C-alpha cells in the first residue's frame, strides 16, 4: 500500500542506498539550513518579521529553556506521550489480532475484512465531532482517536502480510511435520513481519497526527494545550517550541522503527 499518508513524516521510502559522502564533507549539507536560520534571525532583529507573527530563533531557544524549567513542557510532554502510547497500544493490539484472524481463517476474513475495508476510506480525523459528543472532552476521545488511526494501517498490513505468506513454504511446513503452533511461529509470523513493520511505521506517523488534531481541538493539558494556550497570548516562541517537539517526537519514533526493522529483518542482508 502507499506509504505517503498525511501524518507520516514526509520522506522518500526505501529508495536506493544513500550516496556515500566523502569523509569530512558532511558539514556541506548544513550550509543552507544554517543560512535559513541566520536569515530568519536577521529578519526578526531588523523588525521585518514581527514578534507576534513569528518569534526569532533566539527567542524560541529562550522560550524552550523557560517552559522546560517551569515544568510546563515536561508535564505536557508526559501527558501527550501517555495518550499516544495508550492509544497506540490499543489500536495496534486490536489491529494485529484482527489482521491475523482475518488473514488465517476463511470466516474471519469474510466477517472482518469487508467492514474494515469500508471504514478505512473514512478519514478518521473527521470523527472528532462524534467522538466529542460520545466521549466528552477528557482523555477517552483523544486516546480512541489515536487508537482508531493506528488500527487501520496495522490491520491492513498484517492482513496482507499473513495472506501473502508463500504457500510453498506452508506446503513445506506441512510435509515437514510442523504442528499448527510451529506453522504460526516459524512460517506465518516471520513471513508477515516485513509487511507488519511497514504498517507499524505508517501507524506511528498517524498516531502523532491524530494526537495533534485531538489536542488542538480540545485539551486542558498536553503539548497541544501548551500550543493553544500560547496562541491566546500571542506567544509565537512557545508555539514554535511545541512544533519542534512534535517534529522531534516523530523523528524519534521513526528512528526507533528503523532499528526494530533492522534487527527483525537481519536475515535479509
Amino acid at each position, binding site marked *: 500500500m502507499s506509504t505517503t499518508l498525511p501524518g507520516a513524516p514526509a520522506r522518500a521510502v526505501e529508495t536506493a542506498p544513500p550516496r556515500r559522502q566523502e569523509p569530512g564533507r558532511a558539514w556541506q549539507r548544513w550550509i543552507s539550513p544554517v543560512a535559513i536560520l541566520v536569515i530568519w534571525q536577521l529578519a526578526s532583529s531588523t523588525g521585518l518579521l514581527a514578534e507576534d507573527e513569528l518569534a526569532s530563533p533566539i527567542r524560541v531557544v529562550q522560550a524552550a529553556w523557560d517552559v522546560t524549567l517551569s515544568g510546563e513542557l515536561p508535564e505536557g510532554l508526559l501527558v501527550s506521550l501517555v495518550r499516544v502510547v495508550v492509544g497506540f497500544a490499543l489500536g495496534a493490539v486490536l489491529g494485529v489480532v484482527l489482521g491475523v484472524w482475518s488473514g488465517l481463517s476463511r470466516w474471519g476474513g469474510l466477517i472482518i475484512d469487508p467492514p474494515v475495508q469500508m471504514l478505512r476510506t473514512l478519514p478518521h480525523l473527521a470523527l472528532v465531532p462524534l467522538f466529542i459528543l460520545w466521549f466528552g472532552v477528557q482523555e477517552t476521545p483523544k486516546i480512541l482517536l489515536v487508537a482508531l488511526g493506528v488500527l487501520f494501517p496495522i490491520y491492513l498490513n498484517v492482513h496482507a502480510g499473513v495472506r501473502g505468506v508463500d504457500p*510453498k513454504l506452508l506446503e513445506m511446513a*506441512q*510435509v*515437514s511435520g*510442523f504442528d499448527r503452533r510451529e506453522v504460526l511461529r*516459524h512460517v506465518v509470523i516471520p513471513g508477515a513481519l516485513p509487511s507488519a513493520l511497514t504498517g507499524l511505521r505508517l501507524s506511528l506517523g498517524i498516531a502523532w497526527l491524530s494526537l495533534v488534531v485531538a489536542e488542538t481541538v480540545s485539551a486542558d493539558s498536553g503539548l497541544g494545550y501548551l500550543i493553544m494556550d500560547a496562541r491566546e497570548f500571542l506567544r509565537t516562541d512557545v508555539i514554535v517550541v511545541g512544533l519542534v517537539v512534535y517534529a522531534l517526537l516523530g523523528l524519534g519514533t521513526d528512528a526507533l522503527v528503523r532499528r526494530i526493522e533492522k534487527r527483525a529483518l537481519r536475515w*535479509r542482508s
Partner: protein
Amino acid sequence: MSARASAATGSSAAQVSGLVREFSGRRVLDGLDLTVDAGEFVALLGRSGSGKSTLLRVLAGLDVPDAGSVSVPSSVAVAFQEPRLLPWRSVRDNVALGLRTDTDVDRVLGEVGLAERADAWPLTLSGGEAQRASLARALVREPGLLLLDEPFGALDALTRIAMHDLVLDLWERHRPGILLVTHDVDEAIVLADRVLVLDEGRIVADHAPGPRPRTDVAALRATVLSELGVVDGAA
C-alpha cells in the same frame, strides 16, 4: 473410494493402485498403478502436463486422490524443485524444525557438506548449497519414501553432476525408497534402478538400466526419448 494409508506395507516404500485425480473434468491421473520397493531408486519421466507432479503431491499428502488407493510409509520426505528454506531461520533450524526424532542434525549437515554453513542465513547460500540443505532436511527425517521433485532442475550443469553423486551416495547410506520426478532423461538413466515413463495419467514404460556405474546410456536414452514423443533422440 480413495484412501491414503500411512502404514509401511511389507517391503514396499510406495504402493499405488488405480489412482485417479481430476481437475475440473480433466483426468490428470487415470488409473495409475505404481510400486516402489523399499530402498529402491525409481525415476519418473514425463512430458509437462503428464501428471508427474500431481502423483508426487498425492504421495506427499499434499493432494487427495479422487479414486484409487495409495499407501506410503509413516515417514515421507520431500525435496522440492525450489529448496523452500525459511529465509528467516538458520540452515540448521531449517533442517531441524518440525523434527520429532532426536536425529543428529549436524551429522546430516556434514553428510551433505554443509557443516560450516549451519549457522548461515539461507539467502547467503548458493543454489547448490540451498538444494543440499533441502536434501538434509528431507534425510534427517529418516524417510521410508523420499520424493524428489526435479530438485536439480534449476542448478547449473556442473553443480547438477555433483548433486547426482551426492544423492547416490546418500541413498546408498540411508537406503530410503526414492521417487525422483524429472524431465532429464540422462539423469533418470544414470541415477535410478528403474526408469518409468508417465503419459496421459498412466505408467507406459518401465525400464531397468542395469548395474552401475552406467557408462553407455545412449541406447536406452533413444528408446525413452521416443516413448516421450521426441523423435530421433535429438532433445
